[in-house]
């Protein structure tokens, strides 16, 4: 599983990750929360090897990921912005990712789940934002991975697709998969996350369940609890 040890990262003068440890509990859905610029995306990208940390290390199944790429076979990643080559058809994009991974994806189920049948032969530039996100989700979930990392999974989805995405995540969790999800939608966190990591200014400020977080802040909702933390920190 994923273990982060003393990770630090600065972009120029701006220190984004300021050295923290975090190990993810297998078989759970961990939500990563934090205000804009708290280091959520940088942390996720460090795990994927897109961002190279200045110090510290990240272990995947006990091995350092530095200069490695094969461990990514174990990770399904949903990027935040779904922009793909414009002239490729959805079908071709799916086979591209299959080719790159060197295995067939389990696409049929996802295509019917997200109602993508009519879009398969369309070029990606012809698709709406929501449909593109569905394609994005299909690309992420078509492989059977022990770990899924989702960056804002629900953005642009209609209510039906939203419900189906949640069900999909929960079903995979039942199969023992681990999730790392960033989102600004507290509803989603309360509904599906087992654990919550709250990042603030490049460090882990809180880790626990959302009930615990609400209890520490003596607030009734997660949204208010988080707002209270931020107010305290800023004031």
């Amino acid at each position, binding site marked *: 599983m994923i273990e982060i040890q003393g990770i630090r990262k600065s*972009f120029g003068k701006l220190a984004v990750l300021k050295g923290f440890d975090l190990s993810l509990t297998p078989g759970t859905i961990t939500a990563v929360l934090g205000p804009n610029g708290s280091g959520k995306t940088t942390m996720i*990208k460090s795990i*994927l*090897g*897109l*961002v*190279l940390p200045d110090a510290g290390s990240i272990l995947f199944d006990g091995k350092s990921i530095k200069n490695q*790429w*094969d*461990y*990514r*076979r174990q*990770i399904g*990643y949903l*990027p935040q*912005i*779904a*922009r*793909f*080559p*414009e*002239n*490729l058809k959805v079908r*071709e994009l799916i086979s*591209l*990712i299959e*080719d*790159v*991974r060197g295995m067939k994806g389990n696409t049929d189920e996802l295509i019917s789940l997200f109602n993508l049948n009519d879009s398969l032969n369309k070029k990606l530039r012809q698709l709406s934002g929501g449909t593109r996100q569905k394609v994005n989700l299909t*690309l992420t979930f078509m492989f059977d991975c022990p770990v899924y990392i989702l960056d804002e999974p629900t953005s642009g989805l209609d209510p039906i697709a939203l419900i189906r995405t949640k069900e999909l995540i929960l079903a995979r969790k039942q199969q023992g998969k681990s999730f790392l999800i960033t989102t600004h939608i507290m509803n989603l966190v309360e509904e599906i996350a087992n654990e919550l990591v709250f990042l603030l200014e490049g460090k882990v400020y809180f880790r626990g369940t959302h009930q615990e977080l609400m209890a520490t802040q003596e607030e009734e909702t997660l949204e208010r609890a988080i707002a209270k933390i931020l107010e305290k920190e800023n004031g």
Partner: protein
Amino acid sequence: MDKILKYSFSDLIRSRWSIIYFLFYFITGMVLLYMSNDVSRAIVSLMNITFILTPLIGTIFGVMNFYNSREFIELLLAQPVPRYKIFLGLFLGISLSLSISLLIGIALPFVIYGVFGSAHLMNLFILLITGIFLTFIFTGIAFFIALIHENRLKGFGLAILIWLFMAFIYDGIFLMSLLLLQDYPTEKFAIAFSLFNPIDLGRILLILKLDISVLMGYTGAVFNKFFGGGTGMAISLMALSVWAVLPMWLIVRKGNKKDF
């Protein structure tokens, strides 16, 4: 790499711009051939257009394609593939699709006109080869510049500046220095100077093949002796290859260290 190359190529070759680029060369070639009725003259005219336009198109496409594929690159980087395969695959995808447009666009009019069996086949061949070299070189430089500059405007500006320098300013400096040094023997210097600009190099190669180097006076004779011979030809091709490989090496080196 081959997989990413395959998809990047098939994405780009179907883009409207590839077809416009092809049509431009095709129509220009047809017009030049049938208006002048002179293959040699058509090749010179096409050379003048190609050696300015090809680097420019390579530059624009290299920069734009990189910036437009940013999110797609991130998606690919999260897959189990080493980084160099992604960058080389994307770079070769653009370079190849531009080269195919150029190759067919220029060659087709000559094939229709009937160049096979004529003495000009070799000249056409050199025009195509240098055109393809220039496509790879300038797309590579542009791709590399886009890789090191997050700021699109800066990246675009710098890439265009390099094209401008190579296509026009370099020649100006070249001529100025020849003029200033006219009391000295400058032939060796001139040959060395031209090796450092792929556009000049291509131009010289082709002009010498077209036997119009007589127009260039004594320098032309010296150039002809150097570039016309086997060694000179080999050195020029080597210089062009170095020019083509250098950006790729830089792309891989920078790509391995970059944060996305």
